């Protein structure tokens, strides 16, 4: 299950030149607006014809300028979730859901339909018209409609961008569940670092129409260059963990990961559950020596992997913590005082850990 994308297109004052693969799981196409993200998504779906290149879905060439192949959008089997949902206003939710389903062979069975309706919590909405749905409900219907067309790849173009913060919180768990259940590659277009940190397995960072960086979300988001490439504020680190133990006496849950264990407030998940956690760069302090008598629960031995110093008053330091990557942001003054250098052994004091949901981290 993979999609190979290699396209070039010359716009007025802007050249798109992208070359990357989309594998199983969620691949985020990340970058500022105007970087060419939606154009690439449209090229994959067949809604846009680039000047030259080749796109293959599961080995089937759907676009190849040299061979003169252009499979029209209706035959590409792309499940496309648009930013503005694009539900058909004259049809009920159920008719919308079955629009793509009716036009594809082999179709999903009634049991599979029921499963997706259930997964996205649409049971009570089936007879409604789109005008009677909230923004979040529209997104969920659009998602289900795309899934029911038996796609070979699912494209989500900023599906949360039009929603307010509360609606985003409502949809994200559905997307996480989908990521963990769907077996098809998902291309997730976004300019929001938090969404990408929560959902993506792999990251394609796009800048001015070109792939500026690509890699696993765990490695790439914590790379000091990440904020340099994206121009966004540094995000922090994403770490795949597993629930190791519950300590009810202290009200804590221990999460095991490559670099040891993280203590977080007691979670409801069973032992053995995969959890993805996020650590903001500002929430990590560094010490030369192991601190004693400190209120923080999480002090992790680590090694400095890379330092980015070209910031005004801060320095971003990427730590290697038993293979896991953690990003710390300290002041230039501290950097000078403590004279950190790549390779140094340090202790990372983690003040705060964000736990998202029972999403299986496919690391």
């Amino acid at each position, binding site marked *: 299950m993979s999609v190979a994308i290699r396209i070039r297109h010359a716009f007025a004052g802007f050249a798109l030149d992208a070359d990357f693969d989309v594998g199983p799981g969620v691949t985020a196409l990340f970058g500022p607006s105007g970087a060419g993200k939606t154009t690439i998504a449209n090229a994959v779906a067949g809604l846009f014809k680039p000047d030259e290149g080749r796109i293959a879905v599961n080995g089937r060439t759907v676009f190849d300028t040299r061979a003169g192949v252009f499979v029209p959008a209706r035959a590409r*089997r792309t499940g496309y979730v*648009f930013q503005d949902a*694009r539900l058909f*206003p*004259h049809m009920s939710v159920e008719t919308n859901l079955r629009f793509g389903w009716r036009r594809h062979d082999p179709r999903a069975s009634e049991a599979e339909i029921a499963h997706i309706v259930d997964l996205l919590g649409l049971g009570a909405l089936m007879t409604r018209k789109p*005008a009677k749905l909230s923004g979040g409900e529209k997104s969920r219907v659009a998602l289900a409609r795309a899934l029911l067309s038996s796609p070979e790849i699912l494209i989500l173009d900023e599906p949360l961008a039009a929603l307010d913060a509360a609606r985003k919180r409502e949809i994200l768990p559905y997307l996480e569940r989908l990521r963990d259940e769907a077996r098809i590659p998902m291309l997730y277009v976004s300019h929001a670092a938090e969404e990408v940190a929560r959902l993506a397995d792999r990251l394609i960072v796009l800048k001015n129409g070109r792939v500026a960086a690509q890699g696993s979300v765990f490695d790439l988001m914590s790379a000091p260059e990440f904020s340099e490439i994206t121009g966004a504020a540094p995000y922090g680190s994403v770490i795949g963990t597993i629930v190791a133990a519950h300590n009810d006496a202290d009200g804590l849950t221990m999460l095991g990961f490559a670099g040891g264990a993280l203590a977080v407030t007691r979670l409801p998940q069973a032992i053995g559950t995969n959890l993805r956690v996020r650590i903001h760069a500002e929430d990590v302090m560094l010490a030369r020596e192991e601190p004693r008598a400190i209120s923080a629960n999480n002090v992790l031995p680590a090694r400095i992997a890379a330092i980015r110093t070209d910031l005004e008053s801060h320095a971003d330091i990427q730590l290697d913590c038993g293979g896991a990557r953690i990003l710390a942001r300290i002041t230039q003054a501290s950097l000078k005082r403590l004279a950190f250098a790549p390779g140094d052994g340090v202790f990372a004091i983690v003040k705060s850990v964000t736990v998202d949901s029972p999403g299986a981290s496919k690391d």
Partner: protein
Amino acid sequence: MALLEPAETEALLLSLRVSSVAVGCALPVAVATAVAMSRRKFPGRSLLDGLIHLPLVLPPVVMGYLLLVVLGTREPVGGWLLHHLGIRFAFSWTGAALAAGIITFPFQVRAIRLALDSVDAGLSQAAETLGAGPLDRFFNLTLPLALPGVVAGAITAFAASLGEFGAIITFVSNIPGETRTLPLAIYSALQAPGGEAAAARLCTIAIVLALAGVMLAEQADKRLRAALGR
């Protein structure tokens, strides 16, 4: 219909028949023309646009005269139609319908084209990714969503057809029971001595019909929009 003289009833029913046939026959052509004009670029597009709108700006009498010149039974086209297909437009109610259909064609095309243009092209893209081909998208998406405009265009054209005078009297004359529609009957009543009462009755009918048409259009629009989830 006791309020009306038989000849007046005849004029009313003839008007309704002429307008129904005019709008009904022109509608599919108007939809096709509007689709071509709204979606495609082709050579001669602006010429076609001009031709479609010609009846709006041309005096109806000129339109009627042109029809007579082309479709008169002694003219090549009209003669051919009569001898080979047995179709006669000149001095027949079908000719009145043809004239009314052509005169009101721009109303239909304009309304339908506006409605088609207002349908979000993004919806069509979404349907495409869900496996729908061009005809499928047109009949299941674009046309239903443009339906309020199509209906509004048809009702406007119907109302305008009821009032067509110049083109009809020029092309098919003023034959009682055949081509004497409501406006022609009013005109004839006013020409005859003592015809004022008949003219007044016919004018009242024309006003009622026009009003009913406008209200019907409003209602249809409201209901269709509700059905379309707007």
